């Protein structure tokens, strides 16, 4: 009888999924890159310098990996968490005290911190290698938006445990919006926006109100941040990541000396 591995690899199911033998020879190592959906992000061959850890630090890749970890652990956390004043804190408590495999929240939180750090390091390396220079200018811009979204992801998530740490950090952070020029009710120029002597920008209609959905961090804010954190921003990040990776390829692969 042939070895079990061979039986599996010769089965119709295996062949229907992979359509080529194991990538052990040159031909099949090329074929695997071309036919596998996940691997086709990559080129078939690449300059040695472009994969040197000492060059890229693999930081973009690490950031992407952390994003995936956050997505998976985030979905699992959503199973246990209800974004209402009544339940939010309570659900986090029971997640800590009664749930088996109780490191879900830890992985999610430390992964988020780590992602903020690695995205900075990635930007740092892209800058230090001058990789934003033509033809990669636009991908740098996409990257800056990704950086901003990463911070916003982390910021919106910070509120969800609904403990003292959470609401006061978000209060401090969002208080600034009240001073937005023209659009914050304590911002310079806001008084100029008047209609027939009625102020258009008040604490019930300014930028901070738009962010919080209320005059202070409350139930509406929790709901708003929950939706932003779990749906809107991840979707935007995913789209931008697709563009980011596509552009890395289209701009000629990882940068290197001309």
């Amino acid at each position, binding site marked *: 009888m042939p070895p079990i591995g061979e039986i599996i690899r010769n089965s119709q199911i295996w062949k229907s999924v992979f359509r080529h033998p194991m*990538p052990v020879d*040159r031909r099949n*190592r090329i074929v695997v*890159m071309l036919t596998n959906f996940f691997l086709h992000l*990559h*080129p*078939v061959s*690449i300059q*040695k310098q472009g*994969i040197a*850890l000492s*060059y890229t630090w693999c930081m973009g890749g*690490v950031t992407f*990996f952390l994003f995936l*970890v956050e997505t998976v652990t985030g979905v699992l956390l959503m199973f246990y968490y209800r974004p209402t004043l009544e339940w939010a*804190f309570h659900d*986090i*408590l029971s997640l*800590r005290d009664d749930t088996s495999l109780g*490191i879900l929240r*830890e*992985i999610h*939180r*430390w*992964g988020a*911190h780590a992602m903020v750090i690695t995205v900075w*390091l990635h930007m*740092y390396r892209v*800058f*230090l*290698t*001058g*990789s*934003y*220079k*033509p033809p990669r200018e636009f991908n*740098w811009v996409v990257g*800056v938006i990704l950086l901003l979204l990463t911070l916003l992801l*982390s910021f919106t998530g910070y509120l969800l445990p*609904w*403990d*003292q*740490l*959470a*609401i*006061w*950090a978000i209060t*401090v*952070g969002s208080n*600034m919006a009240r001073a*937005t*020029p023209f659009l*914050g009710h*304590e911002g*310079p*120029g806001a008084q100029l926006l008047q209609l027939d002597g009625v102020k258009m920008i008040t604490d019930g209609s300014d930028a901070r109100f738009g962010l919080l959905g209320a005059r202070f961090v*409350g139930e509406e804010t929790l709901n708003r941040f929950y939706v932003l954190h779990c749906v809107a921003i991840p979707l935007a990040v995913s789209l931008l990541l697709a563009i980011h990776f596509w552009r890395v390829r289209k701009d000629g692969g990882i940068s*290197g*000396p*001309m």
Partner: protein
Amino acid sequence: MHVSQAEFLEGISGFLGSYYLALGAMNAIAALYVWSSLKKNGLALCWLILALLFVIISPLAYSGRPELIQFISMPESIRNFVDQYMATAFVYSTVTLLSLVVLYQFREFFVKPVVAWLMLNAALLVMGLSMADSDFAAIVTKPDNVPIVAMVFLLGYFTWLATYKAVQNDQRMAQGLEPLEALDQEKVLVWPDLVYIEMICMVVLTAVLILWAIGLKAPLEEAASGVKTPNPSKAPWYFLGLQEMLVYFDPWMAGVVLPSLVVFGLMAIPYLDFNKAGNGYYTINQRKFAYSIFQIGFLEMWVTLIILGTFLRGPNWNFFGPYEFWDAHKVEALNNVNLSEYFWVRGIGTALPKAPEGAGAGTTLLYIVWRELPGILLVFGYLAVMPPLMAMTVFRKFFVRMGFIRFMVMSNLLLMMGLLPLKMVLRWTINLKYIINIPEYFLNL
């Protein structure tokens, strides 16, 4: 919250002991590497001795006994000196900036592996010695602060790595050789060469995350309460640089205008940097200007301020030394003075101009402008006169290469970036509060 010194040492001893063991292991591995791969026996011996020293002090830490741990604590005199004489934003900023300048100027010396390794050991040792101080430990080991400690070391490592490669490349290119990256142009297949690296990275990262998650619990404080304000109230750590700017600016600048300009300025970098050299390899000499501006912005004005905001700002956002207890009753005398007051009251010796009782809105506004005229002129001069001045003097070549619009964008971004250090220095030297102070319209600068 205040535990006795003995209890504190008891609690931290396990961590400290393992910490020194880890440092010992780290140096032993270095010794092994230097001996077997680099064949430098003398150096290997040095690292081995260092490793032994760390291993020897680890039982002192494990003991948890005050009379033993005092040998591996930061001496009281140093701690007091740091807390008393160095614990101001002025000293902190000056010292960090000067250190960066020195590191940059003498980078060829500091990137030498031996020197860098010694600096790493020194930093880790200072860290260990300081951990025996309860006030230091309390802040550094707050769960949410642990990542920042990690970030400091990661940034240090990667800055060293990049500078090391840049120095090598710059030396090579000075001799007319290509940068090192150009030697690796040979093509390899992504499967297996890259795919395997990615796989290993993922496995290692997963392991790190799981260990981290087991070892350190995510913080959870009391249930949210809208009436009990904690002191200090801090934004999430990555925004603490912005919160620190609140010391010098009103929220509309620190929280809205300057952060927006940071984002905009970052996006603008590729379109402003017209220097074609230094694309795709590490170098400093070929792009000194871009490099220095970026490093001042990133290392000095972003990262350093975050560290300041996280570790050294306590209740009421007062500055606390690293070994100082966060006393909520500490008072700092604040007698900051506005520019208009300097000008009218102290300079000319009259009262601040004020519209007569019952004056109309227009007249009142005129009086306000008159009152704030010195500041308005100063700011106007800064933003409108400086760019042409820069274009005609130090940046003449830039202006010619960049054209009008790009040069205006760059110079204005630089000037806005310069506002923060300017305002800091004015605060530290003459206690200046606002250059322009129009609270009537929430316009304070």
